[in-house]
């Protein structure tokens, strides 16, 4: 089976869909001729033509807005917002137009749109290149929100997203583009070539949106994570020796409550981990869901490990980033009494 980085897997997903479905379009800033700042669309314009893979001006609002219009006509635009931090001019179009077109037209028009965007920190990006805005989208009825953590999932989920009849916010943890990240920024980075999830089948396959993945079975405590934090959780488990079950949510909206419930009912303990700031973060939602669904099975208070309620820092990034140490501390707390 071919081995791919997450970048290559995403490119492959777009390549497959461009070849299969003439209504698929790929565009965004630097996406066409240049092939994307992270190279996710490199070669796609040469292969599929300038009519289908093209550059736009720096116009997040109108890029997404026009994509909504295209989608209403039955096209399947897959647009790139260069960093999740740049999505805010487009937030209006995403939340008020894309998300609600189906409902307010009584389903006369729909919006099969994908907005891809690199998310999260760990790359010294500072406050305008490191944010994790997922909760701003999970708060909006009508959107789906997906975040893969492996090349295999990235391809399967992106194909599913492009085929989905509704708008999908597709968050790409940029720290994972070239390899898994276990929290040691000064250590040698490992590429996807040596990781089993770097094996990506050729051709078409889709991963159902709304299904979590149990990344590591365990019996003592459940860790709910997504994106880069899946690997931080793995590192924490390895370093602490605690037999945790790690669930990679993969899809935040819809949420796979079944898988979460089955795990927490078994372990009776739960730690939620995300990079985004704490207050009103998606972790708050997860904790509420777990509490409602699993209250009588819980043996200890639910724990949350998140970024701090501060702008993402330039200089002190690794104090902000919720690394394995902080997860281990939360695991120990969850294991008390």
């Amino acid at each position, binding site marked *: 089976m071919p081995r791919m980085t997450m970048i290559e897997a995403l490119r492959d997903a777009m390549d497959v869909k461009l070849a299969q479905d003439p209504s698929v379009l790929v565009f965004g*800033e*630097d996406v*066409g*001729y*240049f*092939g994307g*700042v992270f190279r996710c669309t490199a070669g796609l314009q040469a292969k599929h033509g300038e009519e289908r893979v093209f*550059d*736009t*001006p*720096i*116009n997040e*609002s*109108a890029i997404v807005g026009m994509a909504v219009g295209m989608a209403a006509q039955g096209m399947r635009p897959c647009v790139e917002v260069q960093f999740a*931090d*740049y999505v*805010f*001019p487009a937030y209006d179009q995403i939340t008020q137009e894309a998300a609600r077109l189906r409902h307010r037209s009584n389903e006369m028009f729909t919006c099969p749109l994908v907005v891809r965007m690199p998310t999260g920190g760990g*790359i*010294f*990006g*500072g*406050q*305008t*290149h490191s944010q994790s805005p997922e909760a701003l989208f999970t708060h909006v009825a009508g959107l789906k929100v997906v975040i893969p953590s492996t090349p295999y999932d990235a391809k399967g989920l992106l194909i599913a997203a492009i085929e989905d009849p509704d708008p999908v916010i597709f968050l790409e943890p940029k720290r994972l583009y070239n390899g898994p990240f276990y929290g040691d920024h000064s250590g040698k980075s490992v590429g996807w070539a040596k990781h089993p999830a770097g094996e990506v089948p050729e051709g078409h396959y889709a991963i159902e949106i709304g299904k979590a993945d149990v990344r590591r079975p365990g019996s003592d405590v459940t860790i709910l994570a997504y994106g880069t934090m899946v690997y931080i959780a793995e590192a924490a488990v390895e370093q602490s020796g605690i037999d945790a079950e790690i669930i990679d949510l993969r899809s935040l909206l819809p949420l796979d409550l079944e898988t979460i419930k089955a795990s927490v009912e078994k372990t009776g303990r739960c730690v939620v981990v995300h990079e985004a700031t704490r207050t009103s973060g998606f972790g708050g939602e997860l904790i509420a869901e777990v509490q409602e669904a699993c209250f009588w099975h819980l043996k200890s208070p639910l724990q949350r490990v998140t970024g*701090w*309620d*501060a*702008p993402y*820092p*330039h*200089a*002190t990034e690794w*104090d*902000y980033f919720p690394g394995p140490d*902080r997860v281990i501390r939360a695991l120990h707390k969850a294991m008390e009494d």
Partner: protein
Amino acid sequence: MAARKAAAAPNVSAEELLTYYRDMLLIRRFEEKAGQLYGMGLIGGFCHLYIGQEAVVVGLEAAAEEGDKRITSYRDHGHMLACGMDPNGVMAELTGREGGYSKGKGGSMHMFSREKHFYGGHGIVGAQVPLGAGLAFADKYKGNGRVTFTYFGDGAANQGQVYETFNMAALWDLPVVFVIENNQYAMGTAQKRSTSTPELYTRGAAFGIKGEIVDGMDVLAVKAAGEKAVKHCRSGKGPYILEIKTYRYRGHSMSDPAKYRTREEVQKMREERDPIDHVREMLLTGKHASEEDLKAIDKEIKKIVGDSADFARNSPEPALEELWTDIYADAPTEGAV
């Protein structure tokens, strides 16, 4: 210097020319040093060099008066040096240290100086443009006769909020000079791939804003245009647009191999249109300075830049508590790491 006559401008004093030479050279050497520190891993993340564009800010600063404001994008080091900010503080912000202008909280893209009326580098493309008009609004309200230089790129010139701002600036006759630094590329995308009409100086026509195109490789031409624009603004006639044609020699940021343009294109610019060489020739042919004089300036600049690098290296890392400072006017709320 084939393409340009290097005749000494008759009405420019030696002193003035020497000032421009010194100021432009400071920016160039500073940026070269920043590039080196980046290569050594002392600067992390995003770092956008201004090399090639020096005549733009130096020319416009020559047209500014005490109390005038300036605001720009992330490509901001040149603007800060040109308005008299301390190279030590700028370099130390690049390295994310306590001695930096934002105490390491902002990094390369986000620095400010109240003393020099520098309202920042801004990481989000186009976001500084309405801010610039707001600064001008405040000055007009206060009736203090000040003008704001609002800098942005050819790529940013397509952002929607630029036109919202043009309209209001014209509607309310705000004293703002919109400076479009047209270096012909927005990241990896050449202007022609993203822009319907290349004449950006005409972009204000629909709002009744006068504009003109300026040779940005000629500091005297920039200064002359700046003086005209400033006079227009100060006399209460409202905003003015300067489209300044320039060129960046380096990649968009440090991680850009610049494969979207040819080596020859860059080489030709450097050899035929370099703004510093231009002034150098004027100084020498006009017998305003000798090779020895210029060597002495080179040496002086080298020392300033070397000192700034030493300062930036030796300045301590910011204390961890800084993460929670300056978020609200009140004391920090968050606790332990």
